């Protein structure tokens, strides 16, 4: 019978041979995909997802089993990604860049401030162009909002799991998602 993720995590904590490799094989694609969705950089995504596995190896003993293993691991992973974002932003500031994606609570999202583009309601937008555009607009969201959208719409996590991953309340997740999707709708000219 196949071991559950939680059992494997406990086996990793006890340094049982092979347990860590099994968990990596189960989660490597999801970890890389989520990291890439947040960071949008292949090397950073590879590096952060590997770092998350290393932290998992180091702290497997602290997994109390009160949440699902996947929620606990995604939290480690998303923290790595957000740390990486902050470091990247710090370096940009250090060399004089103005970060266009600040997500501090007092800094308004530039995407939300921008006026909605003119769209011709008769012609509409063809589906392919729209699809390309919708994910390009997701890239312009703040890292927290992008993480919430990715975990919700792509990975199918429930609100309480996203809250646990992002270490915020469920109400905050709802606000992140509502603002993010409202912004996307406005930018796509969907406001009816």
């Amino acid at each position: 019978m196949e071991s559950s993720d939680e059992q494997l995590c406990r086996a990793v904590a006890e340094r049982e041979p092979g347990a860590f490799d099994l968990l990596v094989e189960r989660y490597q694609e999801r970890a890389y995909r989520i990291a890439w969705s947040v960071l949008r950089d292949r090397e950073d995504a590879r590096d952060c997802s590997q770092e998350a596995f290393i932290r998992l190896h180091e702290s497997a003993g602290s997994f109390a089993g009160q949440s699902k293993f996947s929620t606990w691991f995604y939290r480690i992973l998303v923290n790595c990604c957000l740390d990486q974002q902050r470091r990247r932003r710090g370096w940009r500031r250090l060399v004089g860049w103005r970060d266009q994606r600040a997500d501090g609570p007092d800094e308004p999202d530039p995407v939300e401030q921008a006026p909605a583009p003119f769209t011709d309601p008769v012609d509409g937008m063809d589906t392919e162009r729209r699809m390309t555009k919708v994910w390009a607009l997701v890239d312009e969201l703040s890292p927290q909002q992008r993480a919430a959208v990715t975990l919700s719409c792509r990975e199918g996590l429930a609100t309480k799991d996203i809250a646990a991953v992002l270490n915020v309340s469920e109400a905050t997740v709802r606000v992140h998602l509502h603002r993010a999707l409202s912004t996307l709708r406005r930018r796509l000219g969907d406001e009816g």
Partner: protein
Amino acid sequence: MKDVHVDEWLIDHVRGDLDPADRARVDVHLAACADCLASRERFAVLMTELARTAPAPPPIHWGAYRADLRERLERRTSGHGRLWAWLVQPLPALVAAGLVAVLVLSGLPTAVRTSDPIALDNTILATRLDMIARLDVVQQLDLLEDFNVIGELDELPEPQKS
């Protein structure tokens, strides 16, 4: 009034992610509010699009990924990784660079460290004291011969005094 709407619950309603009590509350509101109902439908369409069209990340070789991960993990657990990570930290690197700079600068002559051109001239003259001691000879040298003769000043005959 906007604040009586259920905007922030609509996404969870679409996803079926509300407990029964909250779901019933939202259902009641949607039955009476055309704006929220329309908004819910637009959220549903957008979320379906997002789920269906999510771009795939660039492909990577999973064997190489796991090998690299294993190597990183071994470095980290063996302690070499920690030492190397410490060495490449910005602060220790800056301190080391500063120390090297101090050592290099302290090894140079004082005149080179200073930006005072007079002090620099004095230093160069000090290395040519032998020429100054024979200034009367040097002043009589043809400019074109200077470089050959200067090196053999000690071999020149004493100038005859008239």
